[in-house]
């Protein structure tokens, strides 16, 4: 049985019928198996599935592998909590304005966690190849760099049979689960997302399971009135969880901007002692609050309202 036949068999086994799949964060967390490769939607501080990560940390998942286009403080939390020990991405730091992430540095430099680096386009085309059901994508970048030489055991060089040109074949990524946050989704999993799409059109097609968290659950009737706004179809989705402010303290396009003060605080807490600082942060915002709404309460209403005003301002643009 080839890799493709296995992928087909796994897809065929899934219940892809038109059915409601609304559940809680805790229920959705059970869909993530130990040892899973988990792909995260969004990019950097935008549409990060933070509430779902919160639920996975609380569910005690450990040592998972993650992949994402660009990783911000979500990566720090993944390493610090032990939720993941390896992250495949193109760029990893809280954000330019806060300098290089101390948590990422501490975990990577002490060898306790791995940050596998690919070029941003390579990450995108690896997901796209997975979404298309092909084993690789040919690309023209990466060649000659040490970014490539460090992962070249996973790629193949090729001379184009049509043009004689040199190419690199990067392997498809087919994550076990993708976690994606959107602005609205129906109970079946038809997702509509506004503004920046990042890699979230390819991710659900590439992954073997998809958990969608959404600012709002809307009716299927509403979705069917604007089908050209649906970005990925219900049958790719296994769980739909309604979580207002589910990206906090990161942003959700048109809804809220990053909670900048909170991000400043996170950077401050982890600057001196990344280990203790991150543990304190996890205690206060992940372990102590009994629900995601309580976690939001800890972040504070003032920050939430400031972020909301900024988020909504996009519509005045």
């Amino acid at each position, binding site marked *: 049985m080839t890799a493709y036949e296995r992928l087909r068999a796994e897809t065929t086994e899934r219940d892809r019928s038109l059915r409601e799949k609304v559940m809680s964060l805790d229920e959705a967390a059970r869909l993530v198996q130990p040892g899973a490769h988990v792909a995260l939607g969004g*990019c*950097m*501080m*935008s549409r990060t599935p933070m509430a779902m990560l919160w639920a996975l940390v609380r569910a005690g998942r450990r040592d998972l592998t993650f992949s994402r*286009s*660009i990783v911000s403080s979500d990566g720090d939390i993944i390493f610090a909590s032990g939720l993941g020990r390896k992250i495949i*991405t*193109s*760029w*990893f*730091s809280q*954000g*330019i*304005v806060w300098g*290089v*992430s101390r948590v*990422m*540095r501490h975990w*990577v*430099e002490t*060898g306790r966690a791995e*940050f596998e*680096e*690919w*070029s*941003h*386009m*390579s990450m*995108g*085309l690896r*997901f796209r190849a997975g979404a298309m059901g092909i084993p690789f994508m040919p*690309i*023209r*970048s*990466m*060649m*000659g*760099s*040490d*970014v490539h030489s*460090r992962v070249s055991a996973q790629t193949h*060089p090729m001379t184009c049979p049509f043009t004689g*040109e*040199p*190419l690199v074949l990067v392997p498809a990524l087919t994550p076990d689960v993708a976690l994606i946050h959107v602005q609205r989704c129906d109970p079946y999993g038809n997702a509509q997302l506004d*503004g*920046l*799409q*990042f*890699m*979230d*059109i*390819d991710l659900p097609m590439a992954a073997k399971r998809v958990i969608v968290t959404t600012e709002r659950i809307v009716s299927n009737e509403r979705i069917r009135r604007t089908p050209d706004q649906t970005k990925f179809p219900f049958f790719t989705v296994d769980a739909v969880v309604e979580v207002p402010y589910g990206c906090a303290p990161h*942003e959700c*396009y*048109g809804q809220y*901007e990053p909670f900048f003060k909170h991000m400043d605080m996170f950077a401050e807490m982890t600057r001196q002692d990344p280990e203790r600082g991150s543990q304190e942060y996890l205690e206060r915002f992940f372990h102590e609050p009994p629900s995601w709404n309580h976690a939001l309460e800890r972040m504070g209403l003032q920050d939430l309202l400031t972020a909301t005003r900024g*988020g909504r301002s*996009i519509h005045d*643009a």
Partner: protein
Amino acid sequence: MMPERSCTAGTYTTAELLAVMASRALSDGLIVFAGVGTPLLAATLAQRLHAPGLTILFEGGVIGPFIVPGELPPSTNEQRCTRHANMVCPITDVLLLLQRGYVDVGFLGGAQIDRYGNLNSSFIGDPDHPKTRLPGTGGGNDIASLSHVMVVMKHEKRRFVEQVEFITSPGYLRGGTTRRDAGLLAGGPQLIITDLAELGFHPETKRMQIQALHPGVSIEHVQANTGFVLDIAGDVRVTDKPSERELHVLRQLDPDRLYIA
């Protein structure tokens, strides 16, 4: 209207110098793949001064945003950078514009660069046991692999090294034809703009060479701040200092002095 706390037109900060010099290098009609900070600032300044038809691309998936004074985005991946954009699209597709050949200039900031224009933003020390793990390539490797690159950075010995420890974004690799031999058929670094000088690359050897000096800067001073022996172009220009108009427009763009302080 300039905020009071900005410095007088006569003097200027290093960041202002870099932004102005970089803006002059961007002619009208170009499509510029820009990072945040000085690249974005310089591209926007060029639009205001002499290049109204210049188009900015952001890595987050943004085509032709129109930056409003005082609304400079903090990154290229959040909603702020979509303001007045002509189009937003998936990240993979905006990066594919580089591969398809639509981008004239890839405009990067640099952490560490070497004689052949290779950039390192991944590791300090042995990659397997790094002294410092840096954030990595992002789209930098793709931009440097697929487009002509312009770099702005501070001119310091520790940043200008004989050979980078790790090639994150490829320049001319080991010089000569090594870039093409490695399979990179297009692009390559064109211009390095620092607070001291403007540097290019020799057409054959691809070694870095001084092309222009900023006002009051000597070749010796540039060399003293470089970790390897620089070549010197046939005719080394001296740049004109930032004009009052350039500084005035620049300071209007960044009244809070986020990037020009």
